[in-house]
């Protein structure tokens, strides 16, 4: 038995898991409808794919949500997992699922996939015959991903950095790298049977004044960690920054550098996609304003040339959205995309050059780390502050970098900490900002800059 298979047996040896029949699962993936694979949809649907967010605890409610989405002409269905499952606490998830089923009140903030099991979930997924994207936030997602693929979910979001630094205070980062290595291998293995399984990184990170160079570096590194294990279809992503120009520049640089670095490790045969998240920061309470913001995000995603857009709802500021509100955004976004024609081509060469240089400065510092494998180099780089994510709650994050918005609302670095962007780039960043302010007014600016979309 291979080491991977041995690890598999250990993971599945868990009282909350139904009996895995690997031969049957393999057969299912081999013969699964191509429509279920987002990698296939990227190739054949000549449009930006629209994907909402959403997950309910019970099978019936999730089924009803999917029905609403399909009626609204959705391209990709989401399956958001509850927070107990994300922490591998299947016992609590099971109890809360039962309470949700018996009382008609949702006791979970998502779908407890492991407890439902793959046999049940597969029925729903094959019924709708749309690609499904797994949204979670799990550092140890090994069992979850086995269950997802067996269910017919052929897009897996996340990664060791992007699912840890924004969400956890002290889950060990080195463990997360190893658990995700397993996920990449499983995805790579299943990719050989039919269309490839798509992996997607979570670019928004903390969605709080994260400068594009940090977002892009982390996207590229998670992409490389995935491709080196044999994944053949990967999506890099980022969320609306607050400046249309900065979004367009970020989109151009991330696309260019994803191709460049994939080629560097001889993985140019993999297909790389770009995903854009509608505004991920604090939303306006006013639901009509929220719709305006969502619509503007869709326009920017078109300017960026994203392959997929992930939507928000008019109820974002008030909690988990109803299925009606959620489906409404899908229909509205599809409408905006259909009428949005003849977009101008915009490029800001100066900004692109600066951002490209910043990303390459940080990437070379990561590659120059003395560790023997890429994941260890990345681990060391996060630990020593080469990579620094503003507002990460994790104890390993360096927290020295400070960013603010310039007068055009671009996110700029005014303190670089140990992030090795060159003096020239740092000077460029600072030249856009008013540096005469004292810390008290900078703190007030930061509070304002975080909440720019609120009224």
């Amino acid at each position, binding site marked *: 038995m291979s080491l991977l298979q041995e690890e598999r047996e250990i993971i599945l040896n868990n009282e909350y898991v139904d009996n895995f029949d690997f031969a049957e699962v393999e057969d299912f993936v081999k013969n699964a409808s191509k429509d279920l694979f987002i990698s296939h949809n990227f190739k054949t649907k000549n449009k930006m794919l629209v994907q909402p967010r959403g997950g309910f605890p019970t099978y019936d409610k999730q089924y009803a949500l999917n029905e609403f989405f399909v009626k609204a002409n959705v391209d990709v269905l989401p399956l958001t997992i509850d927070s107990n499952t994300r922490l591998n606490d299947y016992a609590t998830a099971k109890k809360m699922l039962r309470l949700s089923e018996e009382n008609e009140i949702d006791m979970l903030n998502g779908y407890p996939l492991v407890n439902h099991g793959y046999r049940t979930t597969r029925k729903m997924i094959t019924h709708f015959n749309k690609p499904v994207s797994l949204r979670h936030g799990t550092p140890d997602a090994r069992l979850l991903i086995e269950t997802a693929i067996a269910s017919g979910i052929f897009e897996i979001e996340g990664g060791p950095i992007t699912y840890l630094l924004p969400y956890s*205070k*002290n889950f060990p980062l080195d463990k997360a790298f190893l658990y995700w290595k397993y996920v990449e291998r499983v995805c790579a293995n299943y990719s050989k049977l039919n269309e490839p399984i798509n992996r997607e990184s979570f670019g928004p990170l903390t969605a709080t004044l994260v400068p594009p160079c940090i977002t892009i570096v982390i996207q590229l590194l998670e992409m490389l960690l995935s491709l080196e294990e044999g994944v053949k279809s990967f999506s890099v992503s980022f969320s609306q920054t607050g400046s249309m120009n900065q979004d367009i520049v970020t989109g151009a640089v991330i696309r260019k550098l994803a191709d460049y670095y994939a080629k560097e490790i001889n993985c140019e045969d993999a297909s790389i996609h770009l995903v854009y998240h509608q505004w991920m920061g604090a939303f306006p309470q006013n639901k009509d304003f929220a719709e305006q913001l969502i619509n503007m995000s869709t326009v920017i995603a078109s300017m960026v040339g994203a392959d997929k857009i992930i939507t928000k709802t008019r109820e974002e500021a008030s909690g988990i959205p109803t299925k009606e509100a959620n489906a409404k955004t899908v229909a509205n976004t599809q409408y905006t995309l259909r009428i949005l024609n003849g977009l101008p081509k915009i490029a800001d060469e100066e900004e692109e050059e600066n951002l490209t240089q910043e990303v390459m400065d940080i990437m070379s510092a990561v590659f120059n780390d003395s560790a023997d494998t890429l994941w260890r180099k990345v681990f060391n780089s996060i630990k020593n502050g080469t990579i620094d994510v503003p*507002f990460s709650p994790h104890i390993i994050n360096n927290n020295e970098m*400070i960013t603010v918005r310039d007068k055009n609302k671009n996110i700029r670095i005014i303190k670089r900490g140990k992030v090795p962007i060159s003096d020239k780039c740092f000077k460029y960043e600072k030249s856009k900002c008013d540096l005469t302010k004292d*810390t*008290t007014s900078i703190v007030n600016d930061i509070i304002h800059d975080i909440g720019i979309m609120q009224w």
Partner: protein
Amino acid sequence: MKVVTGVVGNDIHVVANRLIDLSLQARGYEVFNLGVNTYLEEFFDAVVETNADILLISSLNGEAEGWCREVNILKSKYKNILDNVVFMIGGNLVVGTGDSNDIVPRFQNYGFDLVFHQVDLNTGLDALEKYMSEKK
């Protein structure tokens, strides 16, 4: 002067915590920031370990109410080591809505010298500075 700070309980809201850290540093304090998701015992141990003058606990999701009832009980376990430490708390101190006129004395009873419910960060820190200079 040394300050230990952090967010109490299972609260993971990190933004204000960073801004408190920055603002304290700008005012010349030496800051030991325990970050989000910190339990009372961890705060107390850090105060002892760093020999801090001030413990500044914050809360955003309102968990403070549940946790801070234990402050005096825990204080007594540390005997007189914490006698000269100024206890301050700020943020959203209760779940849902509450009246500052009730909340402030309640938290003073829990063992805090300075209590700020939904008060602007700099107003709170100005009050801290004033309190510290009067204490001398």
